[in-house]
Every structure is written in C-alpha cells, then in structure tokens.
C-alpha cells in the first residue's frame, strides 16, 4: 500500500532534521499570511499611495501613509512575518543538508534569530524615527 505524500514528507522532515513539526506548520501558516500581506504591500506601495499608479512614490507620501494605524500594522506585520518565514526557511534549507550537530544547530538558530531581531528593531524603531 503506497504511503501518501504527506506521511512521507512529515516522516522525512522528522527523521532527517532536528526541527520540530511546529515550525513546519509555522512555515505553512506564515506563508498564507504573507500571501495577503505581500499582495497588500505591492498594491499599496505602487498603486494606492503614490499619486498615480505609474508614478514613483515620494518621501512625503510614505510619511503620510504611515500616519494611519492600518498601514503601520501592515508594514510592521509584513516585516515580522516575512523575517520569520524567510529566516526559518534558511534554517530549514541548511539543516536539511544533514550532519548538523546539536551545537551547530543552536549556533545557526542564534545567528538567524539575532538577524531577525536586529532587522525588526531596525525596521520599527529606526523607520519610526526617520519618518515620524
């Protein structure tokens, strides 16, 4: 009886890597969230916010757009979710090559988490200060 693909996939993921099934599902769900957020980001940045769909956006428009809470939520949410999905993906790509010892795994996890936290801080605080 042939095993179905999801059972093979989950077993391979569980056996070949040290990463939890929880992060497997987190990739799926953050991916779905990103579908909405990235689409909204493209539409807002290139269509809604500039004076016309074919114009480039100006600094004033960026600042005024970010006054509204909804756009700030979109930007910060996109930043955090995209960073999680991307950095977790990089971790999975590296770990799936195999022979990642426990210590190396935690080093990688620490480095990628540090990058994620630093870029989140950078995105939220610094952009807030620069754009007011």
């Amino acid at each position: 009886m042939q095993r179905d693909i999801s059972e093979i996939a989950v077993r391979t993921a569980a056996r070949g890597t040290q990463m939890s099934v929880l992060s497997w599902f987190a990739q799926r769900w953050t991916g779905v969230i990103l579908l909405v957020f990235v689409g909204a980001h493209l539409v807002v940045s290139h269509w809604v916010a500039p004076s016309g769909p074919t114009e480039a956006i100006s600094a004033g428009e960026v600042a005024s757009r970010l006054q509204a809470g909804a756009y700030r939520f979109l930007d910060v949410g996109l930043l955090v979710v995209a960073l999680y999905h991307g950095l977790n993906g990089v971790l999975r790509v590296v770990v799936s090559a195999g022979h990642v010892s426990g210590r190396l795994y935690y080093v990688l996890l620490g480095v990628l988490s540090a990058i994620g936290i630093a870029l989140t801080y950078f995105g939220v605080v610094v952009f807030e200060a620069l754009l007011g």
Partner: protein
Amino acid sequence: MKSIPTESRKNTYYRFWERTLSDRRMGVGSYVWSLHRVTGLVVAGYLVAHLFVLGTILSSGGSFDNVMGVLAKPGVKVGEIILIWVVLLHAVNGIRLFALDLVPSMDHRISAYAVAGVTAVLGILVAIFIW
C-alpha cells in the same frame, strides 16, 4: 570516493542529485521543488537587501526622491517584473505544498504541472500590468 551511503543517510540534496544523474528523467515536481528552494533563498536575500537599502536612503537625509527618480527607469521595471515572478513561483508552489499537507490524497505530480501553468499565466498578466 566515498561509498554510496545507505538510504536513510542520504540527505535531500543528495537524493535530488542522484535523480538528475540517473537515467530516470527529473519529473516536473523535482524541478518545482528545486525552484522553490532557490526562489526562497533569493527572496530572503532580497528582503535583507531591501531593508538595508531603504534604511541607508532614509538616513542620508533628503535624497529619497532622487533615488526614487533613479528607480523609475525602465530597466528597473524589468528587475521588478523578474522579482515578482520569483516571488510568484514560490508563493504558488507554497500553496500547493499546503494543499498537499491538508489533502494528502491529492496527486503531487498533476499539481506540479498546475503550479507551472498558474505561475506562467499570472506571470504574464503581472508583466503586462506593470510594463
């Protein structure tokens, strides 16, 4: 040269390499899988670069509009279209993977062809829309 490892010790990249070298042709699902990995890494790199560039522009005071003027040239539009294609493939295959997780009985080869088709169609629409 090392001996071929046992099946359980082969990592996913080794298995992929085996398939391309053997006389069994690489199926469309393998292509889509490899492209999913590659596009994922590219988009992750773009994200970091995008944040870095934006931060540099904003902190150098007042040249935002200059840079946006530079970025409005048609050559940059081609880059934008290619970038959206890259994200599009990753997103469409990602939906397929999620669907495979939720509906295990779905055929993963037919859906791989569907991914290629949907990505091509949406990609052409996007290119026409942006250009």
